[in-house]
C-alpha cells in the first residue's frame, strides 16, 4: 500500500515538474534580439523585439531623456539608461521594470560599461567629470572631477574608461583594474573636443574638435599615448557653416580598409585610411552629417543630417564612396541602428513619432513602430562590443 502511494506521489511530482518546466519554457525568452528605443520627451523607453519588429513593453519614469544613451549588461538582460538630467536608470528588459535609479549629477552626457560588466561610468557636464557606479547596486565607487564639461566617455579593455575635457582639451584614462582609479592625463588634444570614439579593438581613441580643424587620435597601446592630429585642415575653416547640431562619433564605422567620419560645419563625410589615419577622400552629402554609421559588414554607410535637413537619410556605397540611395523617412531623423548582422536598419523619426525599419539591400520599408518623440535606438548586441 505504502509502496503504491509512494509510486503515485512520485509520478505526481514528476508530472508536476514537467508541467511547470513546460509552462516556464513557454514564457522563457532570450534577450539577444531585444533592444531599447528612447522616447525623449516622455521619459520612457520602449523595449523592442528585432525579430518581431515590434515594441513588446514600455518602462516609464526615467526623467529627462534628451540626448539619452544606453549600454547593456554582458548578459543582455539589463539596460543602463543615461539621461540628460544626470539620472542613471537600470531597467530589467525581461521583467520590463525599472530596478534601480540614481540622480548622480545635475547634467550628464552619456555613459559606458566596463569590459567585465561590473562598473558603469557616467560623464557629466555639471559638475564636470566622471562618476563610476557598481553595476549591480548602482552605489558610487569612484568620483573623478575634471573641472570641465566631460565628453566622449568610452570603455577600454582592462577595466578602463577614457574621456575628454571640452574646456581643457585633455583626454584622461581612468584605470579601475585595481579598485581606486589611476588616472593618466594627456594634454594637447585640441580646442573644444565635442565627442570621441574608440575603435572596436580598443586600440584607437579619436576625438573630434569643434574649435579647430581636424581630430586627434590616441594609440592606447602606447604608454602614455601621444596625441596625433589627423585631418588637420579638412576645411572647416574655409567657409564654416553654422552648426545646428553637433555630429556624433559613435563606433568605428570601419568600411573595408578605411573608415568614415562626419565633417563639422560641412556637407561632407571624410574617408580616412584605417592604418595611416590619412584622409583618402570625401563624399558630398545632402546636409551636415550627424551620424555616419557603417553597416556591420562595412559595405554601406548610412548618414543622417542636422536641422533643417534632417528629414533625409543617405546611403553611401563604401567601395566607390558614392551616394547610392536617398530616403526621406520624415521630419527629424535622429538615429539609426543596424541589426547585428546588418540585414535591417531601424531609423527613428522624431517628429513623425515613428521608428521605420528598412531592408538594407532592397531599401524596402519593412515595418513601422509608433513611438513618442523617439531618439536613440540601442540593440542588445552592443553588450559585446567595446565602445558601444
Amino acid at each position, binding site marked *: 500500500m505504502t509502496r503504491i502511494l509512494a509510486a503515485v506521489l512520485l509520478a505526481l511530482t514528476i508530472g508536476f515538474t514537467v508541467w511547470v518546466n513546460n509552462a516556464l519554457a513557454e514564457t522563457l525568452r532570450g534577450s539577444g534580439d531585444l533592444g531599447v528605443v528612447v522616447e*525623449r*520627451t516622455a521619459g520612457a523607453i520602449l523595449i523592442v523585439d528585432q525579430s518581431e519588429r515590434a515594441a513588446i513593453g514600455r518602462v516609464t519614469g526615467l526623467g*529627462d*531623456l*534628451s*540626448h539619452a544613451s544606453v549600454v547593456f549588461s554582458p548578459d543582455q538582460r539589463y539596460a543602463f539608461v543615461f539621461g*540628460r*538630467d544626470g539620472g542613471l536608470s537600470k531597467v530589467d528588459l525581461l521583467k520590463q521594470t525599472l530596478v534601480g535609479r540614481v540622480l548622480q549629477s*545635475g*547634467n550628464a*552626457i552619456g555613459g559606458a560599461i566596463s569590459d567585465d560588466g561590473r562598473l558603469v561610468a557616467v560623464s557629466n*557636464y*555639471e559638475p564636470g567629470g566622471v562618476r563610476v557606479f557598481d553595476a549591480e547596486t548602482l552605489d558610487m565607487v569612484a568620483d573623478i572631477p575634471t573641472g570641465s*564639461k566631460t565628453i566622449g566617455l568610452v570603455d577600454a579593455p582592462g577595466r578602463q574608461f577614457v574621456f575628454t575635457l*571640452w574646456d581643457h582639451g585633455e583626454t584622461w584614462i581612468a584605470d579601475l583594474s585595481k579598485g581606486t582609479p589611476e588616472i593618466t592625463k594627456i594634454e594637447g588634444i585640441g580646442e*573644444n573636443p*565635442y565627442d570621441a570614439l574608440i575603435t572596436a579593438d580598443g586600440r584607437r581613441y579619436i576625438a573630434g574638435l*569643434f574649435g579647430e580643424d581636424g581630430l586627434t587620435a590616441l594609440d592606447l597601446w602606447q604608454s602614455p599615448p601621444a596625441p596625433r592630429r589627423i585631418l588637420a585642415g579638412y576645411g572647416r575653416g574655409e567657409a564654416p557653416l*553654422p*552648426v*545646428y*547640431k*553637433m555630429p556624433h562619433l559613435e563606433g568605428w564605422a570601419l568600411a573595408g580598409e578605411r573608415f568614415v567620419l562626419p565633417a563639422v560645419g560641412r556637407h561632407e563625410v571624410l574617408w580616412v585610411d584605417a592604418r595611416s589615419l590619412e584622409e583618402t577622400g570625401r563624399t558630398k552629402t545632402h546636409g551636415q552629417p550627424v551620424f555616419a554609421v557603417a553597416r556591420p559588414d562595412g559595405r554601406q554607410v548610412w548618414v543622417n543630417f542636422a*536641422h*533643417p535637413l534632417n528629414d533625409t537619410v543617405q546611403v553611401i556605397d563604401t567601395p566607390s564612396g558614392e551616394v547610392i540611395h536617398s530616403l526621406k523617412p520624415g521630419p*527629424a531623423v535622429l538615429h539609426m541602428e543596424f541589426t547585428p548582422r546588418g540585414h535591417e536598419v531601424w531609423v527613428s523619426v*522624431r*517628429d513623425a513619432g515613428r521608428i521605420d525599419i528598412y531592408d538594407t539591400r532592397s531599401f524596402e520599408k519593412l515595418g513601422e513602430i509608433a513611438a513618442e*518623440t523617439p531618439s536613440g535606438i540601442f540593440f542588445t548586441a552592443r553588450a559585446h562590443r567595446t565602445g558601444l
Partner: protein
Amino acid sequence: MPRLPALFPLAVLLFGMPPLDAAELAPGRAAELERLVLQDCGSCHGLTLKGGLGPDIRAPTLAGRSTEGLAAIVLHGVPGTPMPPWHPLLSEAEAQWIAEYLLNGGAP
C-alpha cells in the same frame, strides 16, 4: 512658404516697423517654433532648457535680459562658442518670438 527675411524690408516699407508679437507669425508657426526651442535648441540647452553643452536658458536665469538682446543672440549666434547664427533659418519676428517665449518661461 515665402521666406520671411526676404519680405521683411518690404513689410517695413509698407507698414512701418511691425509690432513684434506672436500675432506676426504665420498660423501654426508658433507651434513649430516651440518644438524647435524644446527639441532642437534642446539638443544643446537640454529639453528642459536647464543647460547642457550650452548654458541654462530658463526664465529665472535670463531675468533682466532684453528681448532684443536675446533675439540678436538667436539671429547672430555667439562667436567663439557653438551657438550658431539662426538668421539663415529664422526671421527677426521669429527670433523675437523665441526671445519672449524664453523670457516668459515657456509662454509666448
